[in-house]
């Protein structure tokens, strides 16, 4: 970096320094840097400025113009994703169970070229026994079920009949016993058949249908997509931890859209970045223009306690120290009753409670107090 610019290393952000160096001829760098520094100081937010209020307005106003319920198709297949206002609400409320959990799985180098991409994707997908069965034959005399298997499909994923038997034993081992028959199918018998009837057989059949066999639990749909010059897999349903453990997955880029899952697997800082990315993606998709700094502020607020807290009365609002501030948000009576029961004291240090009491609020010019020390 240029000598002159090094002087500003502590005061100017890196991106500005890089821009000066890139666009400015070396002879003029000293003058330009000084001028930029002045402009930068002028553009800085003053101490006491109500930035939260500005952010709230800046996100809220475009929010009114958002299409209420847009579903868009991620690629070609019939996979829909919550977008638009419902998605923003979902993220900012910090919902634990989001409507459409998704993952974007990036693959390591030999796998991302598109060869066998469908087979790789099929291995990720959660498979249940019902998918491998062509036909159920119920034998009411011997009280047993014969399963005819879809061998082509099993070959694609690499599932052997032995694995199916193992899966059945694991899930329903107490109720049924199963073994392979001569035609390459499976025979399932009820255990302790004397006291069991036909009803139990039908129930067992329904249970067999949803026995988990292989794949990543939670991944219900898969969609291989070409993005730029590589192939990625988009999934409906997410299980980030298990996916990152797979050896053909690129563990540096694979993400999901469930903020809580990211917090659990990658930590709070990653969750903050994910909140910013997800909210900005929605706003960008609607061709609205919101400065990313506003979203950063919201994300910082949500993550400042070390865990994700939604902008709700159970989240960030419940952390406020002032009773009146909490009461002014939602369910005022509950807060006031609880506060009076324990004798809570309100020091009127923040904005809302002072607005309620018709006093100057500590923002902007209302913030500084008298700095003179009175000599006694």
């Amino acid at each position, binding site marked *: 970096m240029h000598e002159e610019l090094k002087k500003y290393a502590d005061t100017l*952000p890196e*991106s500005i320094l890089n821009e000066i160096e890139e666009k400015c001829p070396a002879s003029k760098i000293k003058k330009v840097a000084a001028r930029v520094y002045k402009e930068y100081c002028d553009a800085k937010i003053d101490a006491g400025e109500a930035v939260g209020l500005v952010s709230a307005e800046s996100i809220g106003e475009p929010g009114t113009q958002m299409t209420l319920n847009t579903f868009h198709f991620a690629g070609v297949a019939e996979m829909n994703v919550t977008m638009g206002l419902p998605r923003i609400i979902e993220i900012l409320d910090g919902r634990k169970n989001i409507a459409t959990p998704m993952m974007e799985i990036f693959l390591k180098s030999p796998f991302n070229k598109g060869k066998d991409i469908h087979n790789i994707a099929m291995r990720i997908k959660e498979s249940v026994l019902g998918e491998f069965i062509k036909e159920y034959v119920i034998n009411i005399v011997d009280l047993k079920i014969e399963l005819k298997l879809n061998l082509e499909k099993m070959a694609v994923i690499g599932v052997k009949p032995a694995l199916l038997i193992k899966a059945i034993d694991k899930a329903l081992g107490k109720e049924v016993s199963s073994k392979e028959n001569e035609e390459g199918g499976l025979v399932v018998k009820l255990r302790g058949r004397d006291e069991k009837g036909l009803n139990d057989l039908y129930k067992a059949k329904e249970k067999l249908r949803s026995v988990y066999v292989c794949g990543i639990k939670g991944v219900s749909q898969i969609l291989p997509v070409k993005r730029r010059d590589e192939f990625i897999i988009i999934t409906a349903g997410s299980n980030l931890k298990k996916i990152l453990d797979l050896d053909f997955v690129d*563990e540096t880029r694979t993400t999901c859209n469930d903020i809580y899952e990211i917090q659990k697997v990658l930590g*709070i800082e990653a969750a903050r970045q994910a909140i910013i990315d997800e909210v900005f993606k929605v706003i960008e998709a609607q061709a609205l223009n919101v400065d990313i700094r506003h979203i950063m502020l919201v994300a910082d607020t949500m993550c400042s306690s070390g865990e994700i807290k939604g902008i709700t009365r159970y989240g960030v609002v419940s952390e406020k120290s002032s009773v009146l501030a909490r009461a002014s948000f939602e369910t005022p009576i509950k807060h006031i009753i609880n506060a009076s029961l324990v004798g809570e004291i309100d020091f009127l240090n923040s904005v809302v409670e002072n607005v309620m009491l018709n006093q100057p609020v500590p923002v902007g010019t209302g913030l500084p107090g008298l700095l003179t020390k009175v000599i006694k």
Partner: protein
Amino acid sequence: MAKKIDITKHLLVPKHVLVSDSEKKKVTDTLKLSGKELPRMLKTDPSLADLKVKDGDVIKIIRDSKTAGKTVFYRRIISS
């Protein structure tokens, strides 16, 4: 299957550095804080797996920022 993943290499995870005690004082002095006002971070946070942290430690986080290039952020460790 049994591969050990290193989540600190993930794109979403910024660099976490443990701040030494002398540096900690410098940080709280320049920010004019007592240290308790810093944003918090759970001791059990997965991104801290490689660092040996205890309560009250300060973690320096170097984030990649879209607006500023790189920004520095501090968090204090709490146990719950």
